């Protein structure tokens, strides 16, 4: 028997976008449906759809109201959203080097204290995780990863920092994140990677895509600095394990 998928909610985001919401919480099944709908919308090449933005739990569909109205597009999206999920494809898998602790991860010690384990154990747990890019958002290349191992969940900082460095690897709630450009963050900073998930003048400009699989590997400060120079020159530094 084929499982009947619960219908998503169609929420108006103004007069030129629809939010197709599969869940209100972070939920891997909902995220799979978001990414599946995103692919379906792309393959249908609906002329009125101008851009789609997948997130953890919803797909934001930007459209041209001169070409289609809310009800007609909503009906089409609902039809697509209720199609059976395709067979899971092998995702691209990236291995991303991280220099943990010290100046690169100023919260590592505090995270260890809060979790009542050693800083080394925090790193061991973090690199043991099998992660998925659930969404990219907020600022260019900021990648939100699901799959943070149990026993690493921590609520966000009371006082977000106004400026955290480029390449920061952090944890917040049940997520881990790869931040590309320097900016504000309320997450706990574990380390830094030389990988640029967004880099102008490189092909591709954006390295990761929603749905990609990610693992982290620990590197020392010296390696980080060498990788940082290589990344600045346009190298990925991240290793593509499967594609």
């Amino acid at each position: 028997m084929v499982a009947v998928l619960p219908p998503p909610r169609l929420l108006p985001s103004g007069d030129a976008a629809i939010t197709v919401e599969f869940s209100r919480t972070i939920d891997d099944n909902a995220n799979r449906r978001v990414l599946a709908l995103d692919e379906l919308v792309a393959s249908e090449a609906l002329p009125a759809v101008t851009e789609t933005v997948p997130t953890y739990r919803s797909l934001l569909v930007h459209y041209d109201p001169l070409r289609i109205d809310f009800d007609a597009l909503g009906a089409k999206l609902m039809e697509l959203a209720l199609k059976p999920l395709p067979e899971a494809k092998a995702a691209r898998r990236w291995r991303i080097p991280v220099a943990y602790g010290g100046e690169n991860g100023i919260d590592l010690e505090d995270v260890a204290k809060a979790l009542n384990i050693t800083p080394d154990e925090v790193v061991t747990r973090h690199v043991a995780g099998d992660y998925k890019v659930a969404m990219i958002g907020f600022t260019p290349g900021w990648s939100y990863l699901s799959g943070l191992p149990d026993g690493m969940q921590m609520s966000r900082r009371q006082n977000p920092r106004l400026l955290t460095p480029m390449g920061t690897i952090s944890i917040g709630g049940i997520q881990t994140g790869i931040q590309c450009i320097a900016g504000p963050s309320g997450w706990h900073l574990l380390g830094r990677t030389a990988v640029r998930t967004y880099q102008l003048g490189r092909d591709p400009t954006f390295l990761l895509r929603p749905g990609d699989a990610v693992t982290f590997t620990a590197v020392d400060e010296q390696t980080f600095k060498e990788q940082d120079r290589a990344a600045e020159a346009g190298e990925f530094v991240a290793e593509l394990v499967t594609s």
Partner: protein
Amino acid sequence: MSKLIVASVSPGTSVQDIGRFGAQRFGLVPSGAVDRLAMATANALLGNPLFAATIELGPLNSVFTAKGGAVRIALAGALRPVEMAGTPVAVNTTVTLADGESLNIGVARTGSFGYLAIEGGVRGTPMFGSLAVNARAGLGSPYPRPLQAGDELLVPAAGATTEKRIDLPAPIEGQIRVVMGPQDDEFAQECKDLFLGSEWKISATSDRMGYRLEGPAIKHLHGHNIVSDGTVNGSIQVPGNGQPIVLMPDRGTSGGYPKIATVISADLGRFGQMQPGLPFRFKAITMAEAQTAYRAYAELLQSLPGRVHDSNILMLDIKALLQANVAGVAIDATDDATWQTAATDNGQ
């Protein structure tokens, strides 16, 4: 080639066009002009494509100087005193700066942003199809940051031509129209009523990322954290302190606060032009009404080139123009008396 030299510039001035699309899924926001109608007006006056890159001017004084040849420009948007070599220049007209001549742009009296278009457009290298400045992402051309004194823009030398004016219809006035949602169910009915029934003011701490509103605190039903989802221009998110923030063209592509409503596309420019501290209200309309307003707005934009006429100030009948509500043309923006009369006529 001539040059347009930025002799001095208001804070918050940057090159903007319609923005860059297709990469919001990677966290790259479109950016682009706050007031598309005003940007398109400046471009229409010069015969440029409507959404060509212009200089989006902040509310304070700026001075631009032509160098190496004549430069033809048009200014639209916020009403403000403008003069060239001691002669007043009206907003919503074209003017040609002779080599060495300066355009002195005063403080905005109504509105926040002006749009300075250059004949032939701003020269630059598009990134993701746009010259629009997004300083955080290091994007924008010819400078990937707000303009500074000393910057130089390469421009085609102006040809000899008749200067132009534009007949604009009466601007839309009154409440800022919204469509409720996407997360209006995160708020109790009395909080939605409070949102729609209250007077709001834009905070002075607002910028192109978001306009912070001051008014009664809007409380959430289930707390102020939601799982991040996508944003649009005009999303009205409500953070923990209950003071809404209207997201503007440099917003984050996703956000984790509940969004009670969304400003309709047709009112976004008008909202973006509102000065901090002035009271206004929101009004909820249906999706059908919002999309009808969208079509009317799109038709207005497309009508702009047909509204451009040869400028011949001596032949203007000021009274007839005022009745036709083409305030930007009829008013001598340097003359407080005429300016205030017309502004009152417009109900501002």
